[in-house]
């Protein structure tokens, strides 16, 4: 089971600059669709990548779906050479995204975030309106289904406020 609380505490504890996106951001906003992974957009600043490496190192990050024994080093160079990494860790699945379709990178997304406190951590979470936009931009069937649910959620939220 993904331990979202400990993952967030690990990242925030090392002062990693990240934004919660994807299905978990939907959960934070009130989506009823379960998700098993934590999707974050991280700042590609080299100091931030160092903090990200330190934050997840204790939890044995490894490429999700890759066969065991593949030469994989969890270090700054690996992240700098990649952009989006899908990982499994001892705390559950984590997707590290350098940028996302329809939204761009950390800096571009930051103005479209809410601040939310979860398990004692101050985090940035993509606003519901922007989350719908990026789901539409992703364009896969499951993203359209998610966009539909999030759109309904936005309507319900507006009715109740």
């Amino acid at each position: 089971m993904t331990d979202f609380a400990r993952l967030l505490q690990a990242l925030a504890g090392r002062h990693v600059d990240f934004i919660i996106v994807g299905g978990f951001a939907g959960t934070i906003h009130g989506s009823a669709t379960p998700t098993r992974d934590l999707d974050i957009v991280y700042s590609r600043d080299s100091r931030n990548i160092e903090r990200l490496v330190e934050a997840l190192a204790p939890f044995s990050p490894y490429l999700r779906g890759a066969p065991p024994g593949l030469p994989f080093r969890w270090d700054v160079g690996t992240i700098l050479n990649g952009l989006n990494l899908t990982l499994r860790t001892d705390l559950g699945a984590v997707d590290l995204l350098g940028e996302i379709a329809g939204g761009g990178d950390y800096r571009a997304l930051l103005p479209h975030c809410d601040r939310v406190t979860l398990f004692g951590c101050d985090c940035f979470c993509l606003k519901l309106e922007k989350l719908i936009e990026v789901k539409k931009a992703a364009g896969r069937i499951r993203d359209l289904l998610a966009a539909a649910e999030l759109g309904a959620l936005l309507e319900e939220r507006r009715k109740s406020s």
Partner: protein
Amino acid sequence: MDAIIEFLGSEVDRTLLRENLELTPEQRVLELMALLGAAEEFRRAGETLAGTR
């Protein structure tokens, strides 16, 4: 695409969304983790049952 999303949105069970909107963000995450934990237990139980056949 918007027409498709609008149609799909008409099929969404809004009662669950309204219930979630009554919760805090942290409560929503705790509910998700409880759900995932239960799913994991069901999976293990299924494996145990399959092993006894």
